[in-house]
């Protein structure tokens, strides 16, 4: 949603200020300088520093830090978690967005609120919720132990916590785009004989594809980067339940800064990549949206009432 609606508003605001009062050049440059300095100081510099630190002992050390078995295990676990979490959240997100955008039902606003829950709950609390449910002392702990199923302090726990944390990303991106897709396109597909499924695959999904991809990469970035919730449920077993963020933290605590930054640089790369793709997708989505708008415009223009000969009631101009 963020990219979709907010950006077009920004454009509006921009043109409005241009046509409005001109600020003094000094004030304008002051603002720009402050904003730039701030971004460089707090955003760009630390990021660059991550790479600088990672390579502080040379490429050789960098490579060793990454290929060391525990680091490698953490990378593999992170990829595995993302590979499970993202597809599941795509399915959940599509279903939830579809339900909210296309149907009216009891509990719709509840569902809408629930989707945002992971945004408002602290990740640590999210992790604890699952410990309380599935941990040894938890509600299902006894039963799980009896059946020798391990969730907490094991990979399933990490996956579940990550699913929770990343749940909103796909749904939140999709809801506004789905609402914007004129449901008439879907109805047109139905009148042409398409079933609900065919309509979904051939009409709905293609028209929300950029929003969906956008949601997916955000979801993926968070799935790989999540620390808090995962930290609570993982148990920090080196080589087994350490994801990349957990591994980074551990190395850092062990005063192995170079190794910590080596892995951190991978996550930072992922972040940069995500940002790049996100920008591209936003651009794509906006373009499609504008096209759709333009296509609809000619319709709006001409629905003004046609000139019908006005009927007169004979009037009397003098008594």
């Amino acid at each position, binding site marked *: 949603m963020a990219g979709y609606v907010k950006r077009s508003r920004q454009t509006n605001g921009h043109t409005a200020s241009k046509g409005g009062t001109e600020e003094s050049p000094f004030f304008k440059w002051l603002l720009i300088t402050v904003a730039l300095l701030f971004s460089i100081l707090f955003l760009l510099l630390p990021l660059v520093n991550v790479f600088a630190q990672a390579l502080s002992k040379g490429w050789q050390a960098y490579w060793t830090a990454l290929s060391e078995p525990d680091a490698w295990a953490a990378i593999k676990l992170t990829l595995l978690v993302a590979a499970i979490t993202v597809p599941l959240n795509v399915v959940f997100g599509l279903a939830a967005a579809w339900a909210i955008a296309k149907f009216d039902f009891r509990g719709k606003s509840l569902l809408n609120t629930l989707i945002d829950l992971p945004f408002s709950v602290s990740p640590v609390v999210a992790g604890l919720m699952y410990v309380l449910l599935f941990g040894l002392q938890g509600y299902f702990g006894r039963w799980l132990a009896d059946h020798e199923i391990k969730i907490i302090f094991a990979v399933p726990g990490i996956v579940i916590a990550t699913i929770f944390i990343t749940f909103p990303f796909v749904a939140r991106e999709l809801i506004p785009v789905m609402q914007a897709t004129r449901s008439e396109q879907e109805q047109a597909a139905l009148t042409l004989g398409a079933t609900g499924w065919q309509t979904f695959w051939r009409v709905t999904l293609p028209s929300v594809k950029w929003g969906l991809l956008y949601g997916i990469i955000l979801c993926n970035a968070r799935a790989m980067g999540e620390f808090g919730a995962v930290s609570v449920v993982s148990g920090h077993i080196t080589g087994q339940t350490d994801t990349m963020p957990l591994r980074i933290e551990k190395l850092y605590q062990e005063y192995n800064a170079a190794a910590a930054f080596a892995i951190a640089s991978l996550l930072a790369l992922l972040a940069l990549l995500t940002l790049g793709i996100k920008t591209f997708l936003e651009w794509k989505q906006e373009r*499609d949206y504008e096209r759709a708008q333009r*296509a609809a415009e000619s319709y709006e223009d001409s629905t003004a*009432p046609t000139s*019908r000969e006005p009927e007169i009631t004979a009037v009397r101009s003098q008594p």
Partner: protein
Amino acid sequence: MSIELKSVSKQFGEVAAVNNVTFSVNEGELLALLGPSGGGKTTVLRMIAGLEVPTEGDIYIRGQRVNDIKVQKRNIGFVFQNYALFQNMNVFKNIAFGLKIKKWKSADIKARVRELLELLGLEGLDKRYPHQLSGGQRQRVAIARALAPKPSVLLLDEPFGAVDAKIRQELREWLVRLHHDLNVTTLFVTHDQEEAMEVSNRIVIFSRGNLEQIGTPRDVYEQPANEFVARFIGVMNVLELEVFKNVGRAGELQFPAPGYADGERIRIGFRPFSVQISSDLNQFPYQAVVRQTYFLGVMLRLELELESGLLLRSRMSKEEYANLALYDGKKVSLQIRNYRILSREHEPLGPELTAPEKSSLFVGEGI
């Protein structure tokens, strides 16, 4: 009988969008659903298509009751008001959509799409996307897409609403030709009475969910079922008369009004064609001045001011105008040939009456 609606009603919560509507459409007919916006026209179309379920009543397509048949199985072609083209598909894929769904062979699909592109004058546009088309082209793509699977009925919602006035005229003629060529039963919705009159075989007139009248353009113009229809179709002069001694008066105009009490007010209506004009000031009983002349193609509309200040509308051909040597400001005499007494809006109208000579009104008055 291609389509039949029997006592069909549709409620949207509290809103009664369609009230107990019954009518039928003949095979191959071109029928207009006409009425002011909010009258329930779109809802009727959507119920026929199966996009909306009637609250009450039955709908038949080619004799089969379709209430419980899904939209996908009704074999109708539907053209949405804003066309609803698939934005992510080019023209070819839009038109081919229904055929792919019906699992036509790809060679057959190609042939059929080519045929439609040609029929609708869309050659060379098959690779374009909807946003690269003009309004008129989009409309034709939407019609081609609806026609592709050879529907038994074609339903169009305000097909001319979305194009500008100039192309609209062309499109009307084009729709008539297309209908003539394909002979597929066609229902189209419009709020423009001229459009309905010009294009359709018959017109169904709706207002506020009620079917007011169904008939040929000529029927509804000449024999309007009620005042609503009379005023909605064409132009009407409406006068309020005050009755005194069985004569209704408005200014110097007088009409017989037997059976009405003294002081009672009644309204009458008459078409511009009923206002007969002569350059000979003595030929007709009332004197008037031509105030304004509007040229509407081959026809003219005149605004006439009577001596009492009443304004009337008249209509005539250019020829007639020339014969009478009229111009703005010219004095003429006039009479009103036919008129109707108007009752309440949706009640049946009385018969058309013929105004007697002025002098005959006064028979017996002096007694």
